[in-house]
């Protein structure tokens, strides 16, 4: 061909030639995404967080509900990797064993180094637990060599419960309970927004008025009222799950409007008209021709919706309206850090807050990167 394209220059010279030519939408997006360093880091962070959440029982060294009266407000212990002893230096992770002492004058409890080392081993034996509620085992990712010795990576709370284990269990709840709500928002938003934009006219008017009505509802009072009206006999997770479902009935409106706008713009695009002239049915036009153009945008807005759900959970639980103990979530854990004592005596109770910030930031960076990469044909 004499007219080989010079537009390819703008795409990505590193994947020049044939590879770009047969690259699908997904591949182009992925190449664009890979150039976004922060988004890649965020993807790793989120991936690790979900792995930790999935394998929480296996990774957590202790039962999160187990109280230890001898470890109240135990400070975090530093994990050492290089063991220097008479035999030389080895890579062998250990903790310094802590001794509980009481100040003779103030009677305040302090923990001091005892000089004894507690060694850790991978896949050691810990307390018994049910993995995913399915089978009993006592193998942990890492455990002390002497099962009776405990260690507190993130310290312990006022009942001597291991914060690290609690944070892991909290991650599981906080990062998953909103997902169902997000998915429902997505389905509703895409369907109703798509119908509204594609068919237009009266249907469009009705759906748009509905969106305006829903948007005018005050969310937080409704949420609180619902939390109060649900049967108290339900388990706490079920109650909260129902609340997120109802919140998602409000949450779809934003996405619905965006999808409607895109459908309105796209339905007169030449390639859609061409499909209609080909004789394609309405559903084929929508699902085969129009929706694929939106997938990347939908994924991006999904990624940006998850942190909102996380923040909502944290905020409500912190105020005492969302999840309540004995449930464990980041918000519930932070509620423990509400008073001045924790700030002065046990600042490690704020560690769940760090996780909230990390998760929300990572999701936002990831969503940002996806949105930039979503349109590989732009600019």
């Amino acid at each position, binding site marked *: *061909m004499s*007219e*080989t*394209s*010079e*537009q*390819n*220059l703008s*795409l990505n*010279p*590193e994947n020049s030639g044939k590879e*770009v*030519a*047969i*690259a*699908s*939408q997904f591949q*182009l997006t992925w190449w664009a995404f890979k*150039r976004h360093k922060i988004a890649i880091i965020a993807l790793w962070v989120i991936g690790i967080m979900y792995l930790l959440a999935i394998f929480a029982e296996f990774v957590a060294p202790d039962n999160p509900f187990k109280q230890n009266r001898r470890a109240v407000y135990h400070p975090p212990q530093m994990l050492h990797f290089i063991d220097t002893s008479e035999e030389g230096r080895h890579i062998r992770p250990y903790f310094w064993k802590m001794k509980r002492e009481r100040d003779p004058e103030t009677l305040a409890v302090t923990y001091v180094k005892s000089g004894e080392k507690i060694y850790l081993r991978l896949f050691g034996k810990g307390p018994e637990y049910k993995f995913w509620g399915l089978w009993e085992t006592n193998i942990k990712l890492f455990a002390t060599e002497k099962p009776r010795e405990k260690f507190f990576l993130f310290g312990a709370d006022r009942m001597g419960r291991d914060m690290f284990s609690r944070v892991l269990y909290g991650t599981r709840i906080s990062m998953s309970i909103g997902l169902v709500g997000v998915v429902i928002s997505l389905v509703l938003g895409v369907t109703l927004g798509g119908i509204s934009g594609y068919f237009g006219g009266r249907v469009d008017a009705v759906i748009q008025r509905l969106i305006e009505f829903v948007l005018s509802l005050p969310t937080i009072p409704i949420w609180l009222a619902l939390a109060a009206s649900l049967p108290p006999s339900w388990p706490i997770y079920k109650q909260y799950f129902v609340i997120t479902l109802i919140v998602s009935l409000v949450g779809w409106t934003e996405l619905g409007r965006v999808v409607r706008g895109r459908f309105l713009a796209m339905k007169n*695009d*030449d*390639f859609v*008209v*061409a*499909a*209609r*002239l*080909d*004789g*394609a*049915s309405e559903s*084929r036009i929508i699902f085969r*021709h129009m929706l*694929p*153009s939106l997938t990347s945008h939908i994924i991006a807005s999904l990624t940006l919706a998850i942190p909102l759900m996380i923040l909502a959970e944290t905020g409500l639980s912190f105020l005492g309206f969302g999840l309540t103990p004995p449930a464990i979530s980041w918000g519930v854990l932070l509620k423990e850090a509400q008073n001045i004592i924790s700030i002065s005596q046990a600042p490690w109770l704020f560690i769940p807050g760090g996780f909230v910030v990390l998760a929300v930031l990572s999701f936002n960076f990831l969503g940002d990167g996806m949105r930039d990469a979503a349109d590989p*044909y732009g600019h």
Partner: protein
Amino acid sequence: MRQTLMDTDTSPILQVQNLNLGFNMRQGMVNVLHGISFDLHRGKTTCVVGESGSGKSITARAILNMVPRPGTINSGQILFNPDGSGQINLTSLDPRGKPIRKIRGGRIGMIFQEPMSSLSPIHTIGNQITEVIQLHRNVDKKTARQMAIAALAQVEIPKPEKAVDRYAFEYSGGMRQRAMIAMALSCQPDVLIADEPTTALDVTTQAEILDLMKSLQRELDTAIMFITHDMGVVAEIADEVVVMEKGHVVEKGNIHQVYNAPQHVYTKKLLTAVKRLNQPASTKVRPCTQAQNILQIRDLSLRFEKKEGFFQRITDVTKAVDGVSFDLKEGESLGIVGESGSGKTTLGRCIARVYDPNSGVINYKGQDLMQANASALRETRKRMRMIFQDPFASLNPRMTVKQIIAEPLIINKLANLAELEEIVSTILSQVGLDPNMMERYPHAFSGGQRQRIVIARAIALKPELIIADEPTSALDVSIRTQVLDLLLQLQAEMGLSFIFISHDMAVIRYFCDRVAVMYRGQIVEIGETEQIITSPQHPYTKALLSSVPIPDPTLRGTRQRHRYEPDS
């Protein structure tokens, strides 16, 4: 006059010397301009010609030292010598510094392609011109306003005292471009850079703008650098020609020299493409005389109603298609020509029933498509296909070429999956594409190749009639003829009839047996193409034809320009 030395008349006012420019990408430097050199002279128009992507616009930006990031000028000089006293190297100036800002807009003016987006929508035209004047001239606001009015008068905008307080959206396309010229010339620059200033305009408006630029140049003795891809426009206005291809200057010289004795292969290719378009195609197969009518349009009308307010009252009615009638024979090509807004595209879409016309008859082989139901329409659309203008917008970027071409076959259940690959590869080779490319996505193809894919999709169902809506206007000239030749060849092979919508008279002449001239929703004249071109009857046709640039510099100025101003 500022010139004092004897030889300043021949020394260039601006010299581009060995300019190298590249984009600093992550993967390294991608060179865009490879050592280009040319000169601009006072009172002369230098046309920079080349196809899209050849580096014309970036050269213009480099002269103003406004190279967009990540572009950098790697070597070379741009010497600006406005009064013969000393040369300023524009590339060595700080792109944000005061000296270059004094030159931009003050000594070197610029006109852009798209007059709508280059004028601010929230300031009056007058405010925008006075701003430029006050930036570069030490005058008070009142004087600046007077100068702005004078500038508008100079570009022949009627009632300049009133027009100065209007906004850009109250101007028509041609008026906006005049206002842009007025703005660029308001400080009486020594050099005017015009980047495709007429490409977005209708032929009739283009002709007026070109006339205006010529007369202003005579008045102000400005050096003009005129960027265009249209060899016809070049023949109309150029004194010097610089031909660019892929960032190289492949040929430069006097207009007559370049047109009469082109040296470089690429220049020859460009010129042949233009000259071939100035006559009917030699390979054209005429329809036989006793051919049946394939399509009869009677009194077709479509009104767009603008509804406003709560009760949806009709406040305005636009007659997009207003009582159009014509016949089309089997194997015939009917051209529909007219300027933008004349309703030609709407007419095409009405016939394919993309739009629903209000009244009239669309008789397709005895069947009235106005009355047809959905399934009958689906049957007809297998035999009546459409080709769209923009090959970038009409292909779904998420599907491979194979999927795109197979789509109509699958939908209409004309092929099973096993045969599909073979059918698609036959069609691809029919339109001159390599069948091995069927797994590729549209983004891997150039504009001309994409248009071939669009054509392949259209012929996949073996249609009888193709409605082609400006199929070549988004393409470069040299590719334009290739695509037209492909359509002609397919017409000969498959006995296709065409409704060919275009604003370009040359393309119509090359391709069509008959032509209908549309103006404001109506056909004002219809007949054999050659007859209409040689002896137009309607005043609008005369105006349209007299505006088409003649791609021959020796015939410049031999033709009388007609203007058509209906009383409404």
